[in-house]
């Protein structure tokens, strides 16, 4: 029965790594050692997901579900809008940003800000992050 649907369990296991573990994991490199980051907010956010190929599959499903959000700027705005500090939060170091996003995902679930992608109950924030991955 499960196999009839497009997204497999394995992809969602990877999603767990992409959207759960990645967001919570702390970088082993101290932030003062890192090279100044000149990438766009969309690229930075998408880069937080380690398993890009899986994220893209989920992201594509989300964008089919919410075609009105299928623009980088909308997705970045919507994601940043949910973070404490708004767009300013996107200038945080990677670990801090991951922690903020993980908190937001948890809050999404607590407040049922979820979306059903081919049956999977996914937080809006993680779905939008995957959407970014699909567009970048």
């Amino acid at each position, binding site marked *: *029965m*499960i196999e009839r*649907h497009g997204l497999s*369990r394995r992809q*969602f*296991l990877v*999603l*767990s790594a992409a959207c*759960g*573990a990645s967001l919570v994991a702390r970088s082993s490199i101290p932030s003062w050692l890192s090279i100044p980051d000149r990438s766009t907010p969309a690229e930075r956010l998408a880069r937080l997901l380690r398993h890009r190929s899986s994220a893209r599959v989920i992201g594509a499903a989300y964008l089919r579900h919410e075609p009105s959000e299928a623009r980088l700027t909308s997705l970045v705005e919507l994601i940043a809008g949910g973070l404490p500090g708004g767009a300013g939060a996107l200038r945080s170091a990677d670990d801090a940003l991951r922690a903020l996003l993980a908190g937001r*995902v*948890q809050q*999404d*679930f*607590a407040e*049922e800000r*979820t979306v*059903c992608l*081919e*049956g*999977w*109950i*996914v*937080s809006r924030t993680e779905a939008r992050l995957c959407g970014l991955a699909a567009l970048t």
Partner: protein
Amino acid sequence: MIVDSRSIPHGSRIEADLCIVGAGAAGISIARRFAGTSTRVVVLESGGEAFEATTQDLSRGENVGLPYFPLDTARLRWLGGTTNHWGGICRPMDPEDFESKAWIPNSGWPIAERDLESYYEPARVMCGVSSGDWGLETWRQRDRFKPLPVRGDRLDTRIAQIVSPEARSFRITHRAGIQAARNVVLQCHANVTEIETNSEGTLATLFHVATLDGNRYTVAARQGVLAAGGIENPRILLASNRQWHEGVGNRNDLVGRFFLEHPRFVGGVLVPFDRRLSVGLYDHHKVGAVRLLGYLGLKQATRDQEQLVDVQMSLHPTLAGSFQRSAESEDMKALHALVPALRQGHIHQLGGHLARVAEDLTSWQALLIPGAPLPAPFPEVVGKLMRSTPFEAQALIPDLMGDIAARGYAKKFGAPIESILLRTRINAVPNPDSRVTLGDDRDPLGIPRVRLDWRLTSLDRHSVRRSLEVLGSEVGRAGLGRVRVMLDDHDGPWPEDLAGGWHHMGTTRMADDPRWGVVDRNCRVHGIRNLYIAGSSVFPTAGSGTPTLTIVALALRLADHLKGLLA
């Protein structure tokens, strides 16, 4: 005492104070309550003291609604009734099961949980349930497994008990008590073909009995109880249509309607982030001598707020790799079946079991070096083992050692979980269109066979979906994993694995108003002064527990009511 009705003289009329139709959980409970009193009790049991195919065939019928079990397998017609293959899972009704909910049509009982409360304890003893404790908190202290670590404001973990296999059959546990009771005569092979009433239809005057070998006689009793099960009870009432074309007790066309089951199917899947997530509480396990089984459900406040029926979610982990293979191993099942088969002397089954066991014992050879006197794996397997991650190795080891070793390993150390199937079970909405009627075919005794039209409602479907969505949100919030809901919210077909819980309820439902129920709060058929019904056919709603304990509690309550009348 137990007698064979085939030896009762043809055409005789037996007088009794109380006539009980059916010797299953309900009938035996009432009979035993009367044992040793001065009341003359006759129990009419369709079957004998062992399974007989010709008798069982009397239960055959037609399914015209949702896919359902063949009706001749859904009930057993012999002493002890369906307890002879009962799964033994017990939980009493919750107080709210008796309440009426505005958004659930036809919900609510005319009695409350407090009316049954004092009968649950003797019912527990009758059924062989080990403990009278049903609260999670009591067991949480003693259980090595813990509930799923989700927040408790919307989800509940509930505990059911499982009666040990040797104590499940009422035939085994209560036969001696019936046999020893001098005032109770249990007549085997006695099929009730008709209930005759007085000309006003207000008094049940005669129970017409027939045996498959052609014997016929009648039983006249001051009080009568139908306790033949959720399909046979309405069948007997509907088939008693010689005097009343609509059948007995059916002036409001309610007999056979509101057929309820506990529909079950896999409604979703939970993929845990941690493959070692502890879900042992939700599997059959023991705490001391008590066998327990946990399951999840939405809290009453959440259901009330969202206007849902209760959906119980049980967790069934599918294990990684070979652990799953060993968990589903037919060979292991055969190995387990071999010992009881040997003990009980079922020689004819031994061949099949032996073959399977031999297969199982040799399955590990597939990865051993042929010719080595001791089990030594191929070098590649050793290499793979040494290079593999712990999870892979755990899945690889059982391949080397076979299903037996895998079982032992999983039991001792736990097995990595691939995903957890969420099997949902609905406290379904009472639906008048879900019903038992008489079909065109007749059985060898000339009684029309039944036609079952099982139906569910869109609220049932919506409740499953919403319950799983709430679980998905709570699981995501707790960072445990993600949930997939596998049932859509449209009125499409139900999942292919939809099945019942072998529970037949609602077909002679209880209500104070005769327009809404077949029996009153004392289980007396509306309009007939001396005819009562016992068993789950009187349940107006299916309830969130399992029916057996409540069937017995209600039967004991009915017995006390009848004692008052017969005194």
